[in-house]
């Protein structure tokens, strides 16, 4: 099994954290953004996990889920639901927001883009009594959402408004050592700046998908 990662690629944050947290042994290899790891994909994608069977996983969330699965934490309705929300609602907003921060220095606009998904997360978390999204322990859902939000929420100049429940949850996941080391490895203490060359290669998104459930 082999994990291919790219420098300054935000999607690598979640898989590196999941890898360390799950305790799965796996070789990692750093490759260039434009390097094609999966022969059947037209556009190069990272991270990629090459499975023992030789098959490639090109979805970061599926890689995380697989690592948790083989270490004994099976997917549940609750984790599936968070992963689906992250992929369909949170990711498009995060990408747009990161581009605004890292490429244009527009933190106010970036915060506006994140308002809807973050208030949905705030609502969901404030209704719950548990320390984490699905349980009292960190699940794949926590790692996936935390990693998506980390480059934004760890930036002290990024002000998405009053999000007490989100902040509390975010700090709890941040204190997990596997998450700390993954963050250091991908962002190298430089924040969203470290993602610049990756973000420049992504298509610019103008309108976020506005379909978070509203009140």
């Amino acid at each position, binding site marked *: 099994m082999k994990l291919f990662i790219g420098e300054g690629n935000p999607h690598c944050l979640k898989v590196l954290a999941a890898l360390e947290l799950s305790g799965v042994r796996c070789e990692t290899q750093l490759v260039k953004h434009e390097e094609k790891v999966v022969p059947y994909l037209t556009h190069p994608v990272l991270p990629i996990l090459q499975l023992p069977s030789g098959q490639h996983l090109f979805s970061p969330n599926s890689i995380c889920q*697989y690592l948790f699965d083989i270490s004994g934490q099976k997917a549940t309705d609750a984790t599936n639901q968070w992963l689906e929300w992250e992929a369909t609602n949170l990711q498009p907003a995060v990408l747009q927001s990161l581009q605004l921060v890292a490429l244009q220095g527009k933190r106010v606009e970036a915060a506006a883009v994140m308002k809807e998904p973050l208030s949905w997360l705030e609502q969901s978390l404030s209704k719950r009594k548990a320390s984490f999204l699905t349980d009292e322990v960190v699940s794949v859902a926590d790692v996936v959402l935390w990693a998506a939000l980390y480059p934004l929420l760890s930036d002290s100049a990024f002000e998405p408004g009053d999000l007490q429940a989100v902040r509390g949850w975010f700090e709890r996941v941040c204190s997990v050592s596997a998450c700390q080391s993954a963050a250091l490895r991908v962002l190298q203490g430089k924040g969203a700046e470290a993602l610049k060359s990756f973000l420049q290669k992504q298509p610019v998104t103008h309108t976020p998908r506005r379909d978070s*459930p509203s009140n």
Partner: protein
Amino acid sequence: MALRELNSLERFLGLKKANKYSTQGGKKVPVLQNNNGPALTGLVTIACHLVKEAKRPELLGDDAEQRAVVQQWLEHRITKLDNCSKEEVKVILKDLNRYLEDKVYLAGNVFTLADILMYYGIHHIIVELAIQEKECYLNVSRWFDHIQHYPGIRHHLPPVVVLRNRVYPSGHH
């Protein structure tokens, strides 16, 4: 659209008890109202739940690797295939065609939920393809035809005529 898919999936799974659904937001994300617990939101989440309810776990993959591959294609369906542009469609079909070169189903040799939801999601694209275009994606066409003839899958969708052989010569002689 998503609700009709879920109804077809319920029928395929042989679930007798009718589930209650609603939709959320502009993209009409399906929500399953659950008497025994909190509501579930999202097409893939609900579909996986229905499969478990019907006690057909093999449709989600038999081992961890297969489960991951199934999840990956389910995610691909809702993040890439749904709402993609005309240009993106070409890349999606091209990649899928190369992927299916040596496979019967998306997870290899076994039929899974990934085949069902990809079939439902890609149907409107395949319907629109001209014969010449279908020829560019022979493996996709073969897979698509296979799934639409799989017992109990097609339900709400009309059958599509798919060519299994080339009509137009692919090169000059």
